[in-house]
């Protein structure tokens, strides 16, 4: 495999809440290969959005990147001066938000807003900007005539297409999409995902898709980074993390999702309990209180074990994953814990 486009090493982000620090991301490491879609999955509060925002250093006022590296094209984004970072945003790394309404200004037409980006940041003149705007609308499948519309005149799905066009404006290398389809209905969701996939393949983009929905990941992604309680539980290809997961948390998630193509009689198995409070996380493995395979040794910090090349797993028992997977497929395994 060639050099990855983005390489995150031991990233730490903490929020100051009153006098306490909450380590929302506590040592996350993963690679984003060139020309692939990577799903960053996890439940609310697992730190996935914080990671995504830390990559462009657009984080809340009370948050700081307290450690680690973000290597992008030979630069450490965690360290470079703000001015340099600002030059990178949009041009090299673009962002698609969950709700496009938040990134579009309601009082200007879409064409004006696209033009603003193209002229200010892309150094184009008016004519070039207009041509590029039309090209972008063609790419995301919206009629050119609608360039002069205001954001509120678009439906939710169309607005998300506009957001994609906006992100693509300056030919970025990496697109970070934060729950881009969560607010949309299934049909529109599918259409947007298809569009994103098609553009990614055509333009050879790298995409990070932040989502809680593993069905979306399964549909569109090549690789997955599974996060739990501020740490990366495991990462690898889709087959490694979804079809044959090696971390008990991913195994549990697999059982918790209804599968429309599966047998009608299938029983869903929840993971009992709830994700830990990050202000006061459990010692050792953070999944331990909910894990049916927890042993005494899980009270100590779990190691990162490469169960296969490019498939690191944060678990004491990662080497036994073959057997655990068989156990995890049984409902009783998870019920015994409760």
């Amino acid at each position, binding site marked *: 495999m060639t050099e990855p486009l983005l390489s995150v090493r031991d990233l730490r982000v903490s929020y100051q809440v009153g006098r306490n620090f909450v380590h929302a991301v506590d040592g996350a490491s993963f690679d984003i290969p060139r020309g692939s879609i990577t799903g960053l999955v996890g*439940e*609310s509060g697992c730190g996935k959005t914080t990671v995504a925002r830390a990559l462009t250093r657009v984080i809340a006022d009370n948050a700081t990147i307290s450690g680690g590296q973000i290597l992008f094209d030979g630069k450490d984004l965690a360290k470079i001066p703000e001015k340099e970072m600002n030059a990178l945003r949009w041009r090299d790394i673009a962002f698609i938000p969950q709700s496009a309404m938040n990134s579009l200004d309601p009082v200007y037409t879409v064409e004006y807003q696209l033009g603003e980006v193209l002229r200010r940041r892309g150094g184009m003149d008016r004519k070039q900007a207009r041509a590029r705007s039309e090209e972008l609308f063609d790419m995301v*499948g919206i009629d050119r005539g609608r360039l002069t519309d205001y954001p509120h005149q678009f*439906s*939710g*799905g*169309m607005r998300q297409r506009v957001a994609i066009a906006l992100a693509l404006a300056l030919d970025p290398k990496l697109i970070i999409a934060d729950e881009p389809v969560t607010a949309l*209905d*299934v*049909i*529109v*969701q*599918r*259409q947007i*995902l*298809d569009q994103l996939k098609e553009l990614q393949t055509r333009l050879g983009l790298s995409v990070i898709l932040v989502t*809680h*929905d*593993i*069905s*979306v*990941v*399964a*549909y569109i*992604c090549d690789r997955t980074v599974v996060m739990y309680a501020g740490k990366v539980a495991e990462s690898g290809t*889709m*087959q490694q993390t*979804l*079809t044959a997961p090696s971390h008990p*948390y991913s195994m*549990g*998630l*697999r*059982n*918790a*999702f*209804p*599968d*429309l*193509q599966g047998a*009608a009689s299938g*029983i*869903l*198995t*929840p*993971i*009992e309990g*709830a*994700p830990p409070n990050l202000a006061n996380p459990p010692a050792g493995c953070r999944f331990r209180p*909910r894990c049916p395979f927890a042993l005494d040794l899980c009270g100590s910090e779990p190691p990162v074990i490469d169960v296969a090349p490019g498939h690191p797993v944060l678990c004491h028992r990662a080497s036994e994953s073959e057997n655990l997977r068989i156990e995890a497929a049984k409902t009783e395994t998870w019920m015994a814990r*409760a």
Partner: protein
Amino acid sequence: MTILTKMGATKKSDVLVSVHDAKLHYQVGGAFAAMRGKSTVVKAVDGVTFDIRRGESVGLLGESGCGKTSMGRLLLKLEDITGGSIHFDGEELSKVHRKGLKKFRSKAQLIFQNPFDAINPRFTIRQTLSEPLENADIPRSEREDLIIKALELVKLPEPAQFLDRYPHQLSGGQLQRVVMARALILQPEFVVADEPVSMLDVSVRAGVLNVFRDVRDRLGLTAIYISHDLALVRYVCERTIVMYLGRIMEDGPTEDIVREPLHPYTKALVAAVPVPNPDQSHDPLPIGRGAPDPRNPPSGCVFRDRCPSAHARCAAEVPQPRPVGSRLVACHLF
């Protein structure tokens, strides 16, 4: 309908809820919009007819704006019906007032979508669960016992420890169980669940769904499950009603609909559901672009502007639900 009512008086009818040509129209925009010739009426529910048998679980499926939530609210008399009728246990809901309404409220319950919003943050769990009991004039001495039993029913472990806690001290999964316990504490016959797991973390959704299934079977509840997710509906309901822009498109056994959807809209809906399996192949969606606009639905069949098999008749004539095998389908193709 009158026959049903008469039967209900003598012998318990097999049908618990009977909806006939129900309509819920909202006035939106003002006189100025009307002057500019814009439609000022949104037809959230527009001529919906179906029966629910006792003990049946029915999924109301559709995209946002299809009227599924409005339909649920009509069934619970949380909205005033614009036209048509809904009979609950033989009684017409629009004629139920005061005393009858109090009785109806103890029989028909709602499970809310957002558990973080559905419990008063100033109330302890005990106060939250006491409210329906107080309203039903259950003596104080019996309340504690009923509360504990309701919490056990929804599988909240060691319920006593939660009684004096406030909602913010509970996790989403636990809160949704409390919401369910509140709905079930008076032993209702009929429950409407409005996307009860959509606000919950994925790892705990299955737990809440399992409790829902378990309780429904144990109490023999008649249930409506409102969702946009066919996979979830399939997990809890034997029958599914597919709605689009206030009308029913298809109504039949869930398994049949999942395996062989008939209505073009249902076909698209089934094809669009993502599957948590990376090895699954997907066909392109059989639907046009665009989104439903509840203010200006097309004439005739409301789905025709996105339908791949629309023809001249679809614009001219509203398709009525027709029996096709085990199902009802509202489409001119059938």
